[in-house]
């Protein structure tokens, strides 16, 4: 009996360890809220939020395989993409609209951002930072488009078509009159870097960026 109980506790603990950058997103979310995870993949974050924060979570995922895997876990996910399929959701349908590592792959990032803040009271957005020093070195010394473990795909095959830097993103938020509620940059492993509030440093040292926005 006890062994079974401790086993399942161990399983739970194990299954509830998620990717470090996703954990940072999860930490931003209040329990019991309504969450839409756009580009939810295999449902790692969505499942975690549903289990541990009891959110009313929904997902949108481009790949059929991802959708299938999510629904097979009992997660409410539908096939669709951020460019096309956000228009259906009513205003303020969610407390949070999450777009993790997907903004750079959208056709119209600006429209997508404003959609996120139409359907969600807050938007949580993460993206690879092209202002990172290594990306700058790649361009400056190698004269090649940046590639790293988080961006392993060659330029001609990558789904990522709209790259930006942390500074670029902050500028866009200003232009769109969006409030940056929280922001942080992460290292290559997805862990948070403590750099204070200097955007310039963050832009140089952060491999990925994570923002929470509101209107």
């Amino acid at each position, binding site marked *: 009996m006890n062994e079974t109980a401790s086993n399942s506790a161990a399983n739970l603990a194990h299954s509830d360890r998620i990717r470090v950058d996703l954990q940072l997103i999860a930490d931003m979310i209040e329990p019991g809220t309504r969450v839409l995870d756009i580009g939810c993949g295999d449902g790692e974050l969505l499942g975690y939020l549903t289990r541990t924060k009891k959110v*009313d979570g*929904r997902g949108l995922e481009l790949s*059929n395989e991802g*959708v*299938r895997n*999510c*629904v*097979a*876990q*009992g*997660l*409410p*996910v*539908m*096939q*669709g993409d951020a460019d096309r*399929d956000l228009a*259906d*959701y*009513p205003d303020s*349908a969610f407390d949070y609209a999450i777009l993790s590592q997907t903004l750079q792959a959208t056709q119209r990032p600006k429209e997508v951002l404003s959609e996120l803040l139409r359907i969600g009271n807050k938007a949580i957005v993460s993206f690879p930072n092209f202002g990172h020093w290594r990306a700058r070195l790649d361009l400056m010394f190698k004269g090649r488009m940046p590639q790293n473990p988080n961006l392993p795909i060659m330029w001609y095959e990558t789904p990522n078509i709209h790259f930006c830097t942390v500074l670029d993103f902050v500028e866009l938020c200003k232009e769109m009159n969006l409030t940056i509620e929280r922001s942080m940059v992460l290292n290559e492993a997805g862990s948070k870097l403590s750099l204070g509030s200097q955007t310039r440093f963050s832009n140089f040292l952060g491999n990925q960026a994570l923002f929470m926005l509101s209107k």
Partner: protein
Amino acid sequence: MSTATNTEKRPPLPGHHMVLGETEKLRLDSGVEFGPFTLAYQTYGELNADKSNAILVCHALTGDQYVADEVHPITGKEGWWSEIVGPGKIIDTDKYFVICSNVIGGCLGSSGPKEINPETGKPWGLDFPVITIADMVRAQTMLIDALGIEMLFAVIGGAMGGMQVLEWCKSYPERVYAAAPIATSFRHSAQNIAFHEVGRQAVMADPDWCGGNYLLEGKKPSRGLAVARMTAHITYLSQPALHRKFGRKLQNRGAITYSFDQDFQVESYLRHQGKSFVDRFDANSYLYITRAMDYFDLSLEYDGRLAEAFQGCKTRFCVVSFSSDWCFTTAESRIVAHALNAASCNVSCVEIESDKGHDAFLLDEPDFHMVLSGFIEGAAEGRGLK
């Protein structure tokens, strides 16, 4: 003497029969107050103490209530969804109480055109009132009431069964905890209506149809109904699936015969499909039920704004389509899913890759089974079902 002598002599079909609408009649969309009427139904598993584990399975056009019987009383084969429903299966009858009723207008024991009109003592024939998907569902609610079930844990069905699922969620959302409309749509497309019309014309062109009075005349429009089934059957398959199965293979012969005999295997197969269908289905029922599907358009009363049909609906949905289904396409399913989204409903929408066409929902499709199983388990957890 008796008109009943002309109807086929068969022992009464096994399973439950419930007479409904005795005190309060069934109000049909056509305006007719109908009743009392009978629904024939099967149940599998046990209803739990708080009556929270009931799953209503809705059958498709030519399906019936014998969803998971080991031996179908007429065909001798196993039930049409034995793959999915049964002990330890995806719709686990050890855990859930599964109900499946023959639709009103059907021909396997529920009131329909081949049953006797109590007022005349003769088979209804075309005097049977025209029914709709909403009528079928309204009749089912009376059965569910009679079984003492307030809220169904799930309503699940494919094709016309899926139409009933959507109708349940539109009209009785508080009575459905989870819904799986599979390979279906919120309306019948022009192409689907067109194919149904071909089928109906085939039935009505058969002289043995006798203006719908074949039972009285001691005849049976078997040829017409078989042609209807043959046409419909093609629409349930996909071009690649049909070609993979038969190609241009010849039927028990080395060469073509320069005749109109069944040279090709696919011809023989279709003839067989048609022939076996007429043994288990009533031609007038086929007219009525295809008509019910044709009339189905959930968005009609909302001027096409489908989302309004689901406003405030708390049901969780799993909308499933199959990539090669050209009767009920993924595009149609996505319209449903988008409308559900717009109504802030809890919705999953999955397209299953399959080249088996519309019939894929009845076949062994592991991805589909994985999805349906996950959806049901997730919903059971939400509903607190152990």
